[in-house]
């Protein structure tokens, strides 16, 4: 006969959470690295954005660089362009992701090949995707050559400008391609966990196909869709490499504008570049906090994300 200790039957979900100090000790090493590298860099950036630049002879803290960029029409143009590209690519990716998730959930769960193919863009770096978009969509790119060969255009100059263009189509295509799998997988996880069961309930409760989409699927996936979209928005708002490769020279997206200022030969332009970076970080932080808030609210209501 085996004797079970009193604690041996404690479920992992009901096991008591370690106290505050225990947690700090357990997570201390990891937290220290994050605090020094990430927090240190952020603090240094904040100081520089406030004009603390001893190498250039500027040591007094001031908000004049923030005031300067906020009053700069170029900054405003860049901000609007960045918001437009980040919001549009996020909305398009989210819309396509919902459709993709619904298609994938309808496929057999063992259809691993489809899922594998679908996940490939997740593993490819943004830089590679930006290069691929440039290779495909530039006026001398693959698409242009195919269209030319088919006789649809008379010269490559007739091919519409899809990269380095004023509407940021190339940038958005790169982001949409890259982010669809991420949002789709977030939605799929919810649909698989509770969504399918709720759909069966809905069916027996007389909900038709469109009613199930409207009243069950969309409310069920909304928290994860919104959270994933906010994360994607935050990323596209602050990412540098794709707009650097595929964006136009004026106006630039904010991260490129910040980089340009930061790497200016005039050291005194650096605080403005850093201040732009701080504003980008602020927007990103707000988006992440909102995403977390949504996730937690959904968990409280019993929706598993």
């Amino acid at each position, binding site marked *: 006969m085996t004797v079970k200790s009193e604690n041996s039957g404690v479920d992992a979900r009901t096991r008591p959470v370690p106290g505050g100090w225990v947690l700090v000790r357990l997570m201390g090493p990891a937290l220290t690295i994050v605090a020094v590298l990430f927090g240190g860099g952020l603090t240094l950036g904040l100081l520089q954005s406030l004009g603390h630049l001893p190498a250039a002879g500027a040591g007094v803290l001031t908000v004049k660089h923030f005031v300067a960029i906020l009053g700069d029409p170029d900054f405003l143009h860049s901000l609007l362009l960045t918001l437009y590209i980040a919001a549009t690519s996020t909305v398009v990716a989210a819309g396509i992701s919902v459709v993709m998730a619904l298609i994938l959930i309808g496929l057999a769960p063992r259809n691993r090949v489809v899922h594998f193919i679908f996940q490939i863009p997740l593993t490819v770096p943004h830089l590679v995707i930006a290069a691929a978009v440039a290779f495909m969509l530039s006026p001398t790119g693959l698409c242009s050559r195919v269209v030319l060969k088919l006789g649809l255009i008379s010269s490559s100059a007739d091919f519409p400008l899809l990269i380095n263009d004023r509407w940021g189509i190339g940038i958005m295509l790169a982001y949409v391609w890259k982010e669809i799998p991420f949002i789709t997988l977030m939605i799929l996880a919810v649909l698989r966990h509770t969504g399918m069961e709720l759909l069966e*309930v809905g069916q027996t409760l007389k*909900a*038709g196909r469109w009613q199930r989409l409207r009243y069950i699927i969309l409310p069920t996936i909304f928290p994860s869709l919104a959270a994933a979209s906010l994360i994607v928005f935050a990323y596209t708002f602050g990412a540098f490499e794709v707009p650097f490769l595929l964006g136009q020279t004026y106006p630039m997206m904010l991260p490129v504008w910040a980089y340009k200022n930061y790497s200016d030969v005039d050291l005194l332009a650096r605080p403005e570049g850093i201040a732009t970076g701080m504003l980008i970080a602020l927007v990103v932080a707000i988006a992440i906090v909102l995403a977390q808030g949504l996730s937690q609210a959904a968990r409280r209501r019993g929706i598993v994300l």
Partner: protein
Amino acid sequence: MGELILKNINIRYGGEPVVRDFNLEVRNGEMVSLLGPSGAGKTTVLKAVAGLIRPERGEILIDGYSVQDLPPEKRDAVMVFQKPLLFPFMNVMQNVGFGLRMRGEPVREARQRIQEILALTQLGGLEYRKVHELSGGQQQRVSLARALVLKPAILLLDEPLSNLDANLRQQMRELIQEIQAQTRITTLFVTHDQAEALMISHRVSLLLNGRLRQVGKPRELFYRPADPEVARFFGARNFIQGRVKDGWFQSEFGTFQVPQGFTANGDWLTATIRPEDLRVSPDSQFEIQGEIQKINFEGSATRIWVRCRTTEFVVLTSEADFFPGQNVRIHLPPDKIRIFPPDSKEFEKIEEI
């Protein structure tokens, strides 16, 4: 009005047969339990009735009409699942009124109907409560209310009590019985708990390994099981073999009269006696001698394993003063012996369970 007929239903999952040649008739206003162990195919049958699974063969009729080609939303059957599966983004009232809203019922009538059902399911006052604020029992009651509000011809209950603790289970069982008696809604109730099935239903249908083995009133299944497998499911542990000769079942533990209608003569048959029907005594008043192998005290009764020659009998007795190794005598009351008909499953099959 609600009459459900399942004719020769066959269902496969991934090529494997899950339900085979299943026939069942649930009469108007009746509560029938579909009883069986886990994996027997009970939920599969229920889902087939609801329209969530399409049988490979067979026909499902509700009120005389075949619903085979109707999607779940067009069938007059509503299912309550094992988990409450409430919509987490709706409050109690919205959950209960979901089906009415989908059917496009006028708001005023819907509200009145929801209030009636909330009162019936003892959920009055919780209309605007968020579902995650409810207890497990309340959540399952909301789930039941959500189905009842639609007044379906057939109510399908898929082990709705299995996630509740013992007290809540009892309360909920009584509530379901009360509501069923009040509304006379035709109900097919899936459970793996034999006590629950016997207590709650007008008739019980036992499903083993995807096949319907016996349908009847609770007492019939308990006291007159169709074959040894059914008997074993209902707790029978004592099986003896004997040969029928001139209307008598002759075994090494006695001779018992064969019920009328048995035509077998010279055949080997199987008989059973329930543990609680066996008599045991340390004195020599009974005819069969044995030795106690093991004792389990179970509170109101004591379970004793007694070896008599090559057979081990299980006895359930209210007396507790026995001990392992003790020599005892047992008695098989003839009126408690159940001899299985010749066409019932062979004894060897029981051992496979």
